[in-house]
């Protein structure tokens, strides 16, 4: 007869706290998860409404600011900034004329003067009696080498003889700084 052990004595009597209370702990965790979800969901909704409120406040204040008195202040400053820009690039024609007055050589006079802002150049037609004066005048407009001047570049060389007046006419193109 074989020996059959029919004892009902439990082999693992000492169970740990965790294994014994696993199910209640998991229930608690589940409840906490649900609570966290609820809180997060509520906070998200609350923040969304706050954002909407802030955005609508922003929109109304922005519209008020852009169409209200602030535009006068910005317009005033923009106008002043534009004036400064315009003044910097404004050519002083009289200065150019005064410079020509200073550099005109004896025996030479102007027949015509033309200024063009697009090219910032003066085109002169001068008249004189002899070619020596033509050369002297071109040199006078060019000025001494290395001189800081209103005239940055002077080109010439084209001459013609006016039979009616008996004079040599020559063109000078002056680039301004």
């Amino acid at each position, binding site marked *: 007869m074989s020996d059959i052990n029919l004892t009902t004595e439990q082999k693992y009597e000492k169970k740990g706290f965790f294994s014994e209370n696993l199910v209640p702990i998991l229930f608690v965790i*589940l409840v906490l998860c649900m609570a966290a979800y609820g809180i997060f969901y509520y906070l998200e909704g609350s923040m969304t409404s706050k954002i909407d409120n802030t955005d609508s406040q922003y929109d109304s204040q922005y519209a008020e600011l852009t169409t209200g008195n602030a535009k006068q202040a910005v317009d005033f400053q923009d106008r002043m900034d534009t004036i400064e820009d*315009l003044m910097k690039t404004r050519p002083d024609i009289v200065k150019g004329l005064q410079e020509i007055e200073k550099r005109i050589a004896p025996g030479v006079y102007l*027949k015509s003067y033309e200024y063009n802002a697009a090219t910032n150049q003066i085109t002169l037609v001068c008249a004189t009696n002899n070619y020596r004066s033509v050369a002297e005048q071109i040199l006078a407009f060019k000025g001494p080498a290395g001189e800081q001047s209103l005239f940055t570049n002077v080109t010439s060389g084209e001459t013609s003889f006016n039979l009616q007046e008996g004079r040599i006419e020559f063109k000078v193109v002056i680039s301004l700084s």
Partner: protein
Amino acid sequence: MRLKILLAPILMIVIIVAVIWFVVPAYQGMSQKRSELKESTAKLEDLQNKSKTADKLVGDLQAKSSEQATVLTYLPASTLEEQIIDNLNYIASAEGVSIYNLSVKTISPQEIAAAGIVAANKSTKDQSLTLTEVSYGMVGSYDKIKNVLQKVFMLKRYNGVKSISIKSVSSPGAENKETPSDNLQADVKLAFDYLEGKESLDNLDSPLFTTGTFDMKAVDDINQLTSVEVIKITPPATGRANPFLP
């Protein structure tokens, strides 16, 4: 008994699913909204600061009414053709120079863009700067023409020379053609630009809202570099039964 055994793993799975599908997305959504709220609040605060700065600037502007008038006279918000004609005529008359063929033509920025014209001295900063081309001729001596040009340059209203042509004219009936005369004819083309006023602000990016003070250098420049006052024309007494009679 079986149910009791299965309950723990089922609960674990439910918890994991709940955390992954509900709790974490809800937390992320909340975090995102929190940062959005922070951003919106910062934007609103910035706007409120700009609003306060704007109120201060408007107050300052009211105290600077004479400077504002100087600026608006120098760069007006419309052509003011009558002012241009009256002032050019006054300057020429005062110098004893006769002017002719005076014309004022406004060219809008759209026309400039369409024609591909590059306006002389045109600021690229503001697109609403409108070019007003003024052309006229004058006859007089060199000194007088030079004085007119100088006075126009010193006028307390912006103008820039686009082109000038000066040539000597022989007097009618002059016998000796070889003698150059001091009677000159000048054809002048000027740009009397103006800047249209703003109906509303496109944005609030102006550095003015950050600094909170006006940069008044332009007013100093106008006062230092120009000296000829702009004549303000007043409307005449009007009304006649037959407008065709002089």
